[in-house]
């Protein structure tokens, strides 16, 4: 198979699916949030959100005008041939999607303030690589909105503060973010590592399906506690007050240096977009998140 062409086509489809159709787990959580909400203002916001999701599907239009910065997660089997062609294929897919879906051009040179116009530029789209045994290629796209990205934060807490130090920093970050990341949000928490590892883990945790228990019982307990606390704050949908401040909290961790305890908090807006597919050795494709969507 022509791997460059195949990856470009699959990545183009993934971007298109992601920006138009919210994944099922996110839709289900938003519906539940609407049912559980009691305040009228909050219900109005969630109703507009649910209506907007339906309209996006009906008109095949991006669910949010901020179609985000395009981030890829590539899990590549070490035996896949043509790994050197994948980067260029993902860049070309991004250019094509910008024109054809269309996406909003969101890649700006930080010095000249010039928008490249096609969602590509230095380190954009960014590709997170993982090499694993085997001969399949798994590609995930996360179009990441700017409003929620602005609220992502990492710092090192004094190790002596322990679990309560983590809880305090996460809650503080959610309070600080307030209305701005378009709540109800998904919150990713990365613990340990260096600060770079913590924020990478936090961001990747945003991709885990909602309402699936963390396989690590300790982390699962912490996630539940943080979720309960966050939804007692009263920030509510779009920060106008209410119960649904977060749809889920996902935690991941790495070992840390004895002297430093990095904690990172990443936010995804309610329009938490993602799409994944697997490309097999024979060139066949399995779409993982958007089955039955063309």
């Amino acid at each position: 198979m022509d791997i460059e062409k195949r990856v470009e086509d699959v990545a183009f489809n993934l971007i298109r699916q992601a920006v138009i159709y919210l994944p099922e787990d996110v839709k289900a959580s938003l519906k539940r949030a609407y049912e559980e909400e009691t305040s009228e203002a909050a219900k109005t916001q969630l109703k507009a959100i649910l209506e907007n999701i339906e309209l996006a599907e009906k008109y095949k239009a991006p669910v949010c005008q901020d179609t985000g910065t395009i981030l890829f997660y590539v899990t590549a089997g070490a035996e896949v041939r043509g790994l050197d062609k994948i980067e260029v294929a993902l860049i070309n897919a991004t250019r094509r999607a910008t024109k054809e879906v269309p996406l909003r051009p969101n890649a700006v040179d930080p010095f000249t303030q010039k928008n490249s116009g096609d969602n590509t530029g230095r380190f954009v789209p960014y590709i997170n690589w993982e090499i694993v045994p085997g001969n399949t290629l798994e590609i995930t796209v996360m179009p990441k909105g700017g409003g929620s990205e602005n609220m992502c934060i990492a710092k090192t807490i004094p190790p002596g503060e322990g679990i309560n130090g983590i809880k305090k920093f996460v809650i503080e970050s959610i309070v600080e973010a307030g209305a701005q990341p378009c709540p109800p949000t998904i919150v990713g928490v990365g613990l340990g590592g260096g600060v770079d590892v913590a924020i990478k883990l936090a961001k990747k945790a945003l991709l885990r399906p909602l309402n699936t228990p963390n396989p690590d019982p300790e982390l699962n307990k912490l996630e539940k506690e943080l979720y309960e606390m966050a939804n007692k704050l009263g920030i509510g949908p779009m920060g106008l007050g209410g119960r649904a401040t977060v749809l889920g909290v996902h935690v991941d961790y790495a070992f840390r240096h004895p002297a430093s305890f990095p904690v990172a908090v990443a936010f995804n807006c309610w329009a938490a977009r993602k799409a994944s597919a697997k490309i097999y050795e024979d060139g066949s494709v399995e779409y993982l998140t958007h089955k039955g969507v063309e």
Partner: protein
Amino acid sequence: MPVYYLKTPISEEDVRKLVVNDTIYITGTIITARDQAHRRALENLKEGKSLPINFEGLAIFHCGPVVKKEGDKWVVVAAGPTTSTRMDLFEDEFIKNFKVRVVIGKGGMGKRTTEAMAKYGAVYAAFTGGAAVLAAKAIKDVKGVEWLDLGVPEALWIFEVENFGPLTVAIDSHGNNIYMDVSKKVEENKRKIYEEIGVTR
């Protein structure tokens, strides 16, 4: 909760009737302006240049839309609000000098803007963040675009809209600001949560 249907140009008198939590729908002309367009409009004012369109009585919308060109006509595909706090730097001068009556965005605005709204007569109306297709469906026509050199998201788009909403009045012209009220309650709730888990500050 009361619902109002407003037509542009909107008078100061009409805007003064609105209070927080009212729902409004707007018909007429709205203009998009983000950071760069705010900056340029105020620079033009300083240099004594006129604006491409008179903003008085209009609504400005914190939004960078997704648009496509069909022939020589622009069509809006998606157009939800962007985070408004970034425009806090400019908005008081904007309200004072250009007499815009409704500022549409998401996430709320701060003290300076709230005070300018009370002083000169304007409201902040929250549109659900991300509800971009809902917004696009209320935009009936693109009347023009100015300052396209700033890029598509930052340009000044002039839209003809019909019943654009629902918008929630979140800052009124009487000094009320829902976000500040929510923020106070959130701080109280946070203190209670910290007590429960034994965090001392």
